């Protein structure tokens, strides 16, 4: 009498929940970019200069988006493994939690009266307070994606769905655009100086050249 051992076949066909899981990664990356767009509005629309702590928070928004962006990029070439899915979202959680520490530090820096806080406010809260809320929400969202991995891992949704395939090009291009524009904006703000004042009042590259 012989026993036949058969390993369960890996699930590779992406159902609705798996497609939604990949859409969620898109929403996460675009949400991070949207937050940075809000910061751009304050910088270029309202003429406020970002401080070093503000720049650090922008960095962690970008870094947090890199993990899910990798899941999206990976999904274009075939089935995403659970290991890759977990690594991407785990990275997002780590970066978001460190980012929230930066935001909380800036909140504490300005929390003692009569400190008026740094720069303008949106609906009564300064941008670094909104950043703290955004980072914590992002960490919860990324943690939820990990928790729901059996349902939310994309499997082959990236290649099976034409809409997701098209969206991946757009989402990744948007992230690249925000990474590049932040690089340029920071260079113009800081110029060739190693240090940056805590309360910048000009774009130093321009003032140095003129």
């Amino acid at each position, binding site marked *: 009498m012989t026993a036949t051992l058969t390993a369960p076949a890996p699930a590779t066909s992406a159902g609705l929940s798996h497609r939604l899981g990949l859409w969620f990664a898109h929403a996460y990356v675009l949400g991070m970019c949207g937050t940075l767009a809000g910061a751009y509005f304050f910088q270029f629309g309202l003429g406020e200069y970002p401080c070093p702590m503000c720049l650090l928070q922008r*960095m962690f928004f970008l870094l947090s988006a*890199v993990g899910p*962006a990798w899941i999206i990029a*990976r999904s274009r070439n075939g089935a995403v493994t659970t290991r890759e899915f977990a690594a991407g979202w785990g990275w997002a959680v*780590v970066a978001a939690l460190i980012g929230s520490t930066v935001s909380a*530090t800036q909140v*504490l820096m300005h929390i003692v009266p009569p400190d008026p806080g740094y720069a303008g406010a949106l609906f009564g809260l300064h941008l670094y307070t909104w950043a703290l809320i955004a980072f914590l929400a992002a960490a919860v969202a990324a943690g939820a994606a990990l928790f729901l991995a059996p349902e939310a891992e994309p499997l082959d949704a990236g290649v099976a769905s034409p809409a997701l395939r098209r969206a991946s090009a757009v989402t990744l291009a948007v992230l690249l655009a925000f*990474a590049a524009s932040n*690089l340029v904006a920071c260079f113009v703000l800081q110029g060739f100086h190693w240090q*940056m004042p805590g309360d910048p009042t000009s774009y130093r590259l321009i003032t140095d050249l003129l």
Partner: protein
Amino acid sequence: MYTLLFLLIFLCVLAVLREWPRRFRMLLWTGTLAATVLAFLPHVLDHTFHIAL
């Protein structure tokens, strides 16, 4: 210094888009995260928070 950190982050995004080898990509990501944390630390250490804990 901050410009260099943004340059590293830009490279991290490029590594995602170009799908660079896993080992190199993870090294770049981790190094960038560590460098960004190091850039943040002086802001905490040098600041007096005026809070009695």
